[in-house]
């Protein structure tokens, strides 16, 4: 047995040597993936990239070269995020970076990405400050692109549209309260939202931020009730979504809520909180609906491969690989400057909509581009699109304990 394995190793080594020149000719294109590996956003980023890579490699790769993925955990901590970028650019010498989740981490990484002169396609972080750098200092920050999600300012605009078009227009409610957790992108977003909602004719009774560690929402909910608001707009991302849904349901809080709730974008959020989010409306970048010809096939293929419903980073990550691959094909090289020129011309029909970049290298929202869909958890934890009206799949359901 031992003799055999020695022989086997020798054969392998010989085969390796023989194959070496062929591999050297076609060195793979390395895709570096800095993401939060422990979270579903991170796992979905990787799986969606893997799906795109397998598909492209199956069709012969890009410029005759195979694509390969290298992952580094950026967690939700800026220090670790910087190390991840350094590992991918300096040690692994990747050709492109696709990833990101927490805006604070991405912002800390930007100078290091720019110093490494490596193209970065963001698929998770939403702060407008990220792509604002491109406009401020194009020469140094031209490497930064955002494939998704639409940035916080545009999200605010679309949430404002939801407030004026749906909450006010269809439910006939004008008194609203806005609460959000104290995170960078939320602080960017809430003032825009308040301004937009007021301009749309809504009466914003209160706005309040809460600590991300908050474990008891009763004081906050009591204030919302006392303010006289009849609809509660929330901006939740990292920590509190589950506690919020549970305490809203447990107290049978008499005001419906909805807005941006990042964890509630997860396909299994409702089951994870024991069905207590039923009635909540949460904005989502894509759900399994015919948004483009790619949307439903992607959802089904992703589910088949991973047995999970994809979250928003998956759409951006999958599209980003194709967008980069096509730009490289057009540029006939992986040289960053040439690829950037081609990326700027992108018009790619992706999973949530047609992806095109503006002068800040940020994805253009609305119209044919990615939209913000307002999706409600309904009976048996089923998701239905409520707004925009064009994509509606079911009527709005008032939570059972709230009198119409």
């Amino acid at each position, binding site marked *: 047995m031992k003799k055999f394995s020695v022989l086997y190793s020798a054969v392998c080594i010989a085969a390796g040597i023989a194959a070496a020149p062929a591999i050297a000719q076609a060195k793979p294109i390395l895709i570096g993936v800095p993401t939060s590996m*422990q*979270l*579903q956003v991170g796992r979905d980023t990787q799986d969606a990239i893997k799906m795109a890579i397998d598909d492209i490699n199956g069709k012969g790769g890009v410029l005759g070269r195979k694509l390969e993925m290298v992952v580094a955990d950026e967690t939700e901590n800026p220090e670790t995020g910087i190390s991840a970028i350094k590992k991918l650019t300096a040690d692994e010498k990747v050709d492109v970076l696709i990833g990101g989740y927490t805006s604070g981490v991405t912002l800390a990484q930007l100078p290091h990405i720019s110093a490494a002169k490596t193209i970065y396609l963001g698929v998770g972080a939403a702060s407008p400050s990220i792509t604002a750098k491109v406009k401020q200092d194009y020469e140094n920050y031209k490497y930064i692109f955002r494939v998704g999600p639409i940035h916080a300012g545009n999200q605010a605009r679309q949430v404002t549209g939801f407030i004026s078009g749906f909450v006010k227009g269809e439910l006939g409610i004008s008194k609203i309260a806005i609460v959000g957790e*104290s995170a960078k992108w939320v602080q960017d977003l809430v003032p825009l939202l308040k301004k937009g909602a007021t301009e749309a004719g809504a009466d914003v009774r209160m706005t*309040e*931020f*809460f*600590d991300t*560690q*908050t*474990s*008891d*929402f*009763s*004081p*906050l909910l*009591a*204030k919302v009730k006392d303010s006289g608001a009849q609809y509660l707009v929330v901006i939740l991302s990292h*920590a*509190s979504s*589950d*506690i919020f849904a*549970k*305490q809203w*349901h*447990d*107290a*049978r*809080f*008499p005001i419906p809520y909805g807005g941006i709730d990042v964890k509630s974008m*997860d396909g299994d959020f409702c*089951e*994870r*909180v*024991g069905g207590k989010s039923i009635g909540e409306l949460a904005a989502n970048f894509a759900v399994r609906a015919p948004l483009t010809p790619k949307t439903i096939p992607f959802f089904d293929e992703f589910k088949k491969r991973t047995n999970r419903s994809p979250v928003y980073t998956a759409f951006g990550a999958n599209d980003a690989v194709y967008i980069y691959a096509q730009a490289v094909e057009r540029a006939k090289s992986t040289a960053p400057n040439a690829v950037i020129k081609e990326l700027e011309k992108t018009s790619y029909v992706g999973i949530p909509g047609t992806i095109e970049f503006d002068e800040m290298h940020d994805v253009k929202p609305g119209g044919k581009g990615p939209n913000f869909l307002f999706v409600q958890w309904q009976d048996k934890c089923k998701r239905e699109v409520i707004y925009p009206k064009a994509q509606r799949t079911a009527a709005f359901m008032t939570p059972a*304990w709230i009198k119409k």
Partner: protein
Amino acid sequence: MLEILIHGAVSSAIYAMLAVGFTLIFGVARILNLAHGSFYALGAYGAYFFTSHLKLPLLPAALLAMAVVALFAIVVEKVLVRPMRRSQLAVLMITLAVALVVEQALFLTFGSEYRNVPAFVDAKFSIGGVDVGGQRLLALGASIALIALLWIFIQRTRLGSAILAVSQDPEAADYMGIPSDRIFSIVMGLSAALAAAAGVLAGPFLTVQPTMWLLPIVKAFAIVIVGGLGSIPGSILAALMLGYAETIVGYLISTSWTEIVSVLATLLMLIFRPAGIFGKRAAF
């Protein structure tokens, strides 16, 4: 006003369950057990695991979770803590290590996403116009009952007297033939079961995910410093103070300020009265 009264009481009750166990271990074994928050986390995860994977009904699942956590705590005490109990610093390090290992184990087993512990009571109750989830009221009631039981156990039973004796003077207790090592094990198990109970009771309305041990240990720490390390009445009083202070700040100022209350209370107490309200001597 009534809202502050009710919600403050619920927060205080959860804090008290955590802090009483933490201070009990200190009182008896003179160790600061940083793994105490892990017992809370394991209690909640235990209830989740037994109900969702083994499909047990909730009550047996909760009791089983408490028993398993108590057993785990006894093993930790025997194998890891006891050999180094002479050194405060070594105990701090080893219990912190246990807490981190538990966190990672939970990460690997259950992933980072939060999990759902089913509630004993899903109904809503209205008390004087204040809507409160039934599970919160249950947590309040159960906490009072469990702490009262513990109190009676310590004051009225033979084993309780032994615990008191060891906490007053371990050496003298040894001479009187009280097996102090066994007492330590029992106390560790008891306080872990209490923390696990807090996890099971609070799990349905708080979060259940691998890092959930950290905040409770910070709060428990703050409470026992304010109340006086080793003093159970001190812990209960301080838990009430902290629970209400946080609720009042949440109502009157802003929810974004609640988390600073405990840190501020600890700091002020350490500066002005290092022994805490009921502490007989400075702990450090």
